[in-house]
């Protein structure tokens, strides 16, 4: 059985410039498949890393002649849901040329909207519904042995004119049981972060987030038949995370890592174990890392900040999304503005640079609310701000309401990268939201003194300045994405 994991030549978020990392979702399921079936031949074709055209992609597939191709991404940071468009297009090309290849799609959106996907994309044979790891292995086994696939849980496929959804798969409870991602299948030397971070990769060592905000994109990783699966947090141990970084450094020369967990700092004990391992093994001198976390956990761990810095942490991201406690409550964020302000201030104090994510395009947003929100972001004064437009995702609690109102339609998802406004608000058109977004980002990066403070900072790691530089250089791309159909993913 020959299985290929395909990454078409897609781009990245408009503000991220040239940004390429291994498809970590595929690395994870490939590792599990290899563990269960070492006899299968696995291959990764990362057309993005190799900058391959569609023609070259098809040529390579023709040479490899896989029985199965897997497509899909698990990280919303690769390009939001817009990557799904790119995967679907690649699947179409492959199916047209090689109809005998079975195409299996999993990850973001495929997991939560399998019916819509299969209806619109006849070239995809199977969607993995919800968490894909075990379903994928069992599906490949069934195909290899010629067994009926309907017994495989967490699957959607066509049967005649019908789309069949098999039973709910459930979640893997202990991530420590999963093998190390199969990085060896990927061209690790080809990856780069934010234009300038070389020897770069991304890891993904926990799943879910206890907050499970009702607008969150990550709902689209899960089967909506589950009981709010996003809120079920699971994580690999701190020791295993350190093992992974050690392998990445020693075997693949990785020096910069973004922990792409939805929320890396949920468990203090795990963070303590991880930073202790990093320091004990001397990995803190070899690998610099950054992560995404939640404000209340940052505040709980303020005393750990110096150790985090010592362990190699150079950048930390927190989300505020909106600007008042009332709005935060409305969104179910479970944090306060004060907590975010304190988080950013304390991280900066500890010499860890900060990224603050915020959003616009919520149901009741008008120009006044958005401009007040910007004022709050400006006052909190993170080093980098990342702005996204509310994009309801299938599977999220807000999705049914948006569909009912006719505000959102499941289309080809081409512009669903969170940098194009795709839904209006009660008071603003998509065009008006885009205009405000373009204004806000330029305003943030034009503040006198901010640029100098970050570029010439003597306390921050030089990687921070490079990331900031990339954001500044790509600002006009965000402005374009906000106001036109220009695509960067």
């Amino acid at each position, binding site marked *: 059985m020959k299985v290929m994991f395909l990454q078409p030549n897609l781009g990245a978020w408009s503000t991220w410039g040239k940004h390429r990392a291994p498809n970590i979702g595929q690395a994870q399921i490939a590792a599990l498949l290899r563990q269960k079936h070492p006899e299968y031949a696995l291959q990764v074709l990362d057309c993005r890393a190799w900058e391959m055209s569609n023609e070259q992609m098809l040529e390579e597939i023709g040479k490899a002649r896989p029985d199965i191709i897997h497509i899909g991404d698990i990280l919303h940071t690769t390009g939001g849901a817009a990557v799904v468009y790119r995967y679907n297009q690649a699947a179409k090309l492959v199916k047209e040329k090689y109809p005998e290849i079975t195409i299996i799609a999993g990850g973001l959106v495929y997991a939560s909207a399998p019916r819509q996907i299969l209806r619109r994309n006849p070239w995809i044979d199977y969607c993995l519904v919800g968490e894909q790891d075990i379903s994928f292995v069992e599906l490949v086994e069934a195909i290899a042995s010629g067994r009926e696939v309907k017994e495989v849980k967490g699957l959607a496929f066509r049967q005649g004119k019908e789309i069949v959804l098999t039973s709910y798969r459930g979640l893997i409870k202990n991530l420590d049981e999963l093998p190390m991602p199969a990085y060896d299948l990927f061209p690790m030397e080809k990856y780069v972060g934010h234009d300038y971070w070389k020897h770069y990769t991304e890891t993904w060592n926990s799943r879910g987030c206890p907050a499970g905000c009702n607008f969150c994109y990550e709902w689209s990783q899960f089967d909506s038949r589950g009981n709010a699966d996003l809120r079920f947090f699971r994580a690999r141990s701190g020791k295993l995370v350190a093992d992974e970084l050690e392998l990445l450094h020693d075997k693949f020369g990785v020096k910069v890592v973004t922990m792409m967990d939805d929320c890396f700092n949920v468990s203090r004990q795990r963070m303590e174990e991880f930073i202790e391992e990093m320091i004990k093994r001397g990995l803190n001198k070899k690998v610099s890392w950054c992560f995404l976390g939640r404000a209340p956990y940052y505040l709980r761990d303020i005393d750990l900040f110096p150790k985090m810095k010592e362990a190699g942490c150079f950048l930390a991201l927190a989300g505020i999304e909106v600007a008042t406690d009332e709005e935060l409550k409305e969104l179910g964020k479970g944090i306060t503005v004060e907590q975010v302000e304190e988080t950013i201030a304390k991280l900066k104090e500890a010499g860890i640079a900060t990224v603050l994510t915020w959003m616009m395009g919520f149901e009741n947003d008008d120009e006044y609310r958005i401009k007040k929100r910007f004022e709050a972001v400006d006052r909190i004064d993170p080093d980098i701000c990342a702005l996204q437009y509310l994009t309801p995702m299938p599977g999220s609690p807000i999705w049914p309401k948006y569909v009912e109102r006719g505000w959102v339609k499941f289309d080809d998802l081409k512009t669903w990268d969170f940098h194009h406004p795709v839904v209006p608000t009660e008071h603003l058109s998509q065009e008006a939201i885009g205009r405000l977004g373009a204004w806000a980002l330029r305003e943030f990066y034009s503040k006198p003194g901010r640029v100098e*403070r970050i570029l010439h900072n003597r306390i921050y790691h030089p990687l921070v300045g490079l990331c900031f530089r990339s954001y500044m250089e790509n600002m006009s791309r965000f402005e374009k994405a906000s106001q036109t159909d220009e695509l960067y993913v």
Partner: protein
Amino acid sequence: MMQRDVHLKPKDLLEHLQFKEGDFGKIALVSGQPQRAKLCLDMLERPTKNFTFLGYTFWTGFYKGRKITVGNGGFYSPDSAFVTELLCNAGIDILVRLGSCGALRGDIGIGDFIIADKILRGDGATRYYVKDDFSPAVDKDLSDKLCKVMEKKGKVHKGDIWTTDALFRETKEIVNSYIAKGAIAVDMVTSPFVTLANLYGKKSCAVLLVSDNLITGELGFSDFKLFEAQKKMIKGVFEFVLDLDV
């Protein structure tokens, strides 16, 4: 009716600001933007604040043993005139401007450096100080030295600077007339800065960072090259002052 000849003299203001002789060094590095002054401040060891007046702040500290004063000396002609006059009265002998400008030649890029040669007065403030035919002059020796140092930091153009007061009246007619007189860049400060230095017999020079280009229409105010070049400009100017005989 007012009884005194002059309401406020620089010495009065210095006294009001509790300034003492010797608080300043002999060399002042003066920028328009406060954030640029802050970057200069970051280069100093043991800096102490001299004063803040109407948002213009000066600090004095040491760079490799040399006593240097840094601060923001104004964005426009009127404020640049009175802050420069204040500095000239406070014991500064050498005034170095770290400014920004628009280029008047198509081949000059964002982030390039301009070393001021002659100054073409298009501002209003200096009319209160000198006659219309007065031609402000930077110190040639200082300018040559500054040019040499900056050439190691980036692309340098030496030439005449036109100072204007009216950003949105840089019309084709006016701009072309100053180009015909030899100007290669336009700013809003250098004329009063050099004029006042000349009046008080102080030495002055100026390096300007190109932020936009009036010929190509390029607006580089948020361009990363600008911020990168700014860093180099500051490093260059600090290297330059180390070599001066004061």
